[in-house]
């Protein structure tokens, strides 16, 4: 759908280019074109209500109207408001990037943003504009039936205009989606750094997922900061939730361990499952005397022992 649209815009551009060269080669054509003012604005204004009704009908036929995510009254409001803005802007004339078009563009961008939030696809979002083509063209045909040349001209102008509106809709849709993804990424970065206090002097960092460089950097910094803040003597880095330990992950871990040691604290890596241990050995990575444990419980028990704590059971389990 998007691809088809881009192709269409592409052909449109080629058409414009060939028209321009045609206009240049013939002075008569140029004069004729400048004499005629687009009648789209006046047609839009005169038939606003009919156009809105047909547009909504079209939207419903293509599925948007039956969608429970958007009510019919909402759809009516949106089409109506857009038509008012569009006819005002078209009356003022000029390019869609000029001042007169600001309100129309803003409105379309708002519609796109709300479609993203309601979970519509880009195709469904773009359909808002494109389903207006048919009613508008039908109206142009009715109004300009006697003047073939004018009909061709106006149809072309209307196509160009609606394609531009469609592109604005899609661009806004894309932008909103990108913002959403960026925000989620930022949230993930924060989520993934929960440094937990296990005991007096013992911190744990449960790592989950892929340790790419950006994330590891943040995780490492927050752990080091917490060590400084709390004066912890021992940190446990738990990699139970890390599916693959390759040389890059190993390097990140080694750097973190070195930094922790430089701060005078000690470190245990837990969650080193048997298959991970074997793979690290074959990979040839030297963990340089880092203490590793298969699970977090073993690591905690070792940590407690190292700091001189003893855990005793005072009552037998029943």
């Amino acid at each position, binding site marked *: 759908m998007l691809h088809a649209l881009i192709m269409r815009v592409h052909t449109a551009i080629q058409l414009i280019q060939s028209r321009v060269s045609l206009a240049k080669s013939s002075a008569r054509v140029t004069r004729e074109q400048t004499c005629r003012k687009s009648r789209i604005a006046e047609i839009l204004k005169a038939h606003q209500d009919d156009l809105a009704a047909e547009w909504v009908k079209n939207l419903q036929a293509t599925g948007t109207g039956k969608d429970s995510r958007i009510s019919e009254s909402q759809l009516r409001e949106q089409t109506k408001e857009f038509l008012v803005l569009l006819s005002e802007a078209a009356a003022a004339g000029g390019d869609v990037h000029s001042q007169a078009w600001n309100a129309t563009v803003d409105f379309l961008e708002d519609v796109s943003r709300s479609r993203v939030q309601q979970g519509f696809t880009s195709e469904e979002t773009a359909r808002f504009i494109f389903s207006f083509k048919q009613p508008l063209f039908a109206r142009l045909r009715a109004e300009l039936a006697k003047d073939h040349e004018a009909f061709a001209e106006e149809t072309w102008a209307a196509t160009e205009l609606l394609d531009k509106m469609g592109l604005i809709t899609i661009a806004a849709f894309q932008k909103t989606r990108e913002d959403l993804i960026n925000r989620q990424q930022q949230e993930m970065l924060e989520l993934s750094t929960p440094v937990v206090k296990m005991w007096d002097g013992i911190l744990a960092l449960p790592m989950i997922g892929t340790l790419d460089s950006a994330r590891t950097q943040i995780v490492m910094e927050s752990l080091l900061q917490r060590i400084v803040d709390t004066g912890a003597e021992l940190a446990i880095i738990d990699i139970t939730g890390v*599916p*693959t330990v390759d*040389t890059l992950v190993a390097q990140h871990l080694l750097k973190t361990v070195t930094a922790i040691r430089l701060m005078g604290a000690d470190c245990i890596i837990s969650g080193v499952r048997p298959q*991970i241990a074997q*793979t690290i050995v074959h990979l*040839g990575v030297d963990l340089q005397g880092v203490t590793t444990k298969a699970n977090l419980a073993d690591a905690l028990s070792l940590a407690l022992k190292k700091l001189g704590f003893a855990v005793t059971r005072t009552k037998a389990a029943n």
Partner: protein
Amino acid sequence: MALVKSEELPVRLEQDVVVARQAVRRLAVELKFSLVDQTKMVTAASELARNTVVYGGGGTMRCEVLIDGGKSGLRMTFEDQGPGIPDMTLAMKDGWTSGSGLGMGLSGAKRLVNDFDIVSEVGKGTRVTITRWK
């Protein structure tokens, strides 16, 4: 030797390394590789995919499921049209890196699989093929 299945994935960005690892894990599970063998193959793929992105400037990974006699195997080919490797002996040496890695990726990947083959030409690109049999 019969080729049962073949898939190709782009390996251009850091995120593609994650996708490549997932594809390899899925195939290794399908082939009922042991957990250790799965982990070895996924880790080797991770090393080679990252080299493709970081040094090769991006390329592709092809995964193939093979049957040879009664054995089944997983073969992966990493190919790029990057700068190539000028000194193969050096590149295959434990601990040698031209960047800021540990320099264990190529030699480590070789130890994690059954067959390892690397072809590289300066200015043309690099192709690494690894196979692990069940």
